[in-house]
């Protein structure tokens, strides 16, 4: 047993038993962060705060919410919204936080992509972050079902139906997930469990893992400079604060973080009090009715881009139906970001502006995702269907092109662009019904997917700045 002496204060007594001083040093006072970073690096703290708000507001909603198809709608729209003191506040805070948390997640992700913070030892940070994105999505989806309005119901119906596309076991799997032949009481209670218990626990563990994965490769910086953190930390501790390239998380970095957080919170509470309606679809204020489909079903804004990839394919190609192609593309869209460190063939860690073609690639990706998001909400009729197709194929094409872009293989890049353009033309002919399910379009898709899957495997790493 360790040797204990009489403590002179409560803190000392605790310190002897829990090593508080050391813990604080490791976690905050001597956790080194580069100096050369901008406000985009504060998104982690913003996300942590939003998650905390979601948990706390969720606890209060949970006190009155009733997970029963007969009671759920009223427990939310009557009890919580009208009877419980400040019930409306918790609900609006919860709904708005759930929506803006995705805005911040997307900014956080795009920052990581722009500054190449996903490679050269930082792969696990990226992967744990992507796992958080997936679990947050599951959390948001299960939560959206709980008020049991029309949109809750039909979104659940459509999304659970997606699993029916899995070969052989699909139909049984859908019934198994729902616990009934259709979305109904057992579906609500099991998604309630997922939303209030299992998903939050997994998210908390993943957040811990995400933080831990930062410890060894350390935080990236605006120039992608490789910093010797130990040496720079020594400088800082020796009083050379100006010369040192790093600052401690507490109290230096956090002060900047808290400023950004403060600005963000003003924006957040502005939404909570004056614009909460953007996170609450009017259709969801009609109670769920399995016998009546709303005229137009769409998910919340943060799922629209992948939803549009799913809907983008409107014609059959040989043996593949439009729906199968949509499902394949949707499946790829949902996992492709995990593989970013391997689709990017350049080792160089630098902001996109200094990486030539990648800069264009990055902004094309952003533009394409915005187009997908906008068209994801529009009814897919008429020319909208074709635009959706262009944007969906464009999304896949960007990833098919990434290895060629980053390894500076001009020929290969031209090939990807050519096949994509040919697919656009073929799609247009298909749209105007000028083309049957020709062998041409099958061949084009075959070449396209070949490029997509083989590119990252066969394109050699170029590495370094040239």
């Amino acid at each position, binding site marked *: 047993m360790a040797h204990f002496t009489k403590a002179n204060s409560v803190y000392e007594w605790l310190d002897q038993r829990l090593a508080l001083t050391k813990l604080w040093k490791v976690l905050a006072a001597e956790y080194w962060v580069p100096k050369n970073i901008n406000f985009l690096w504060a998104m982690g703290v913003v996300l942590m705060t939003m998650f905390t708000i979601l948990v706390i507001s969720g606890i209060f909603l949970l006190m009155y919410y009733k997970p029963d198809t007969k009671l759920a709608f009223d427990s939310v729209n009557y009890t919580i919204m009208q009877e419980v003191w400040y019930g409306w506040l918790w609900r609006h805070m919860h709904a708005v936080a759930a929506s803006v948390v995705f805005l911040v997640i997307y900014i956080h992700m795009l920052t990581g992509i722009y500054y190449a913070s996903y490679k050269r030892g930082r792969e696990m940070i990226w992967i744990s972050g992507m796992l958080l994105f997936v679990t947050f999505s599951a959390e948001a989806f299960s939560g959206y079902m709980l008020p049991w309005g029309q949109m809750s119901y039909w979104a659940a119906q*459509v999304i659970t139906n997606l699993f029916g596309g899995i070969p052989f076991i699909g139909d049984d799997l859908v019934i198994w997930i729902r616990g009934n032949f259709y979305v109904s009481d057992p579906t609500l209670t099991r998604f309630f469990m997922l939303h209030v218990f299992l998903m939050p626990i997994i998210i908390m563990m993943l957040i811990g893992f995400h933080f831990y994965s930062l410890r060894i490769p350390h935080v990236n910086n605006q120039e992608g400079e490789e910093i010797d953190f130990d040496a720079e930390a020594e400088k800082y501790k020796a009083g050379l604060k100006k010369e040192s390239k790093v600052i401690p998380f507490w109290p230096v970095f956090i002060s900047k973080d808290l400023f950004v957080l403060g600005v963000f919170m003003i924006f957040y509470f502005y939404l909570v009090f004056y614009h909460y309606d953007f996170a609450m679809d009017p259709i969801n204020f009609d109670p769920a009715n399995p016998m009546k489909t709303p005229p137009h079903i769409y998910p919340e804004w943060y799922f629209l881009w992948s939803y549009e990839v799913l*809907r983008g394919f409107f014609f059959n190609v040989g043996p593949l*139906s439009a729906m*199968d192609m949509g499902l394949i593309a949707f499946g790829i869209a949902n996992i492709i970001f995990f593989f970013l460190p391997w689709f990017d063939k350049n080792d160089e860690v630098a902001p996109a502006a200094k990486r030539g073609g990648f800069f264009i690639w990055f902004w094309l990706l952003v533009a394409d995702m915005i187009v997908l998001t906008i068209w994801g909400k529009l009814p897919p009729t008429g020319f909208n*269907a074709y635009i959706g197709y262009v944007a969906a194929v464009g999304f896949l094409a960007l990833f098919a092109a990434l290895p060629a872009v980053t390894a500076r293989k001009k020929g290969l890049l031209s090939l990807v662009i050519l096949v994509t353009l040919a697919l656009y033309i073929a799609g247009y002919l298909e749209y105007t019904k000028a083309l049957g399910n020709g062998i041409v379009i099958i061949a084009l898709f075959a070449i396209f997917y070949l490029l997509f899957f083989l590119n990252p495997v066969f394109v050699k790493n170029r590495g370094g700045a040239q």
Partner: protein
Amino acid sequence: MSMAQSRRDFLGMVFGGFAAAGGLAALYAMKRTWDPLPSVMAAGFTTVDLSPMKEGELRTVTWRGKPIFILKKPPEENCNHLPDETKKRLVKIGDSEYLVMIGLCTHLGCIPTWEPEKKIFHCACHGGEYDACGVNTFGPPPRPMDIPPFKIEGTKLVLGEEGPEYKKLVGKA
């Protein structure tokens, strides 16, 4: 290998085996807990009397929480224009022919609406269209609307049970 070592290995294997068996049993229990309950499975039958229906009328009944479209066909509409596999989508009940199908879009499960003037089913979700025989003609739906298992008792239709007419229709007999 010494005696003690092999004994430790053996104990390790026994322990691992027990743990694996327990783990599998637990997984099975978890899977079963997510399964639909027996009461849910048993509530899967619906009986409809078709005798009061008029020609060209569409009726929607509920079966297993799903809408079922029943369309009484005028004699001249026989769905014979369809390719062979889908031709036999009509059921003879009494002396009239009916179209019986699950009123869910085969794309992602929205309920298509019947537009009597155009004689099509239109799905508002992603713009899918079906003709008056329930066969997909436009948009993302991959196949005609599904036919639910049914049995005929006189002029009554029992949904949820596989009668001989159903088996003939879907080619199971």
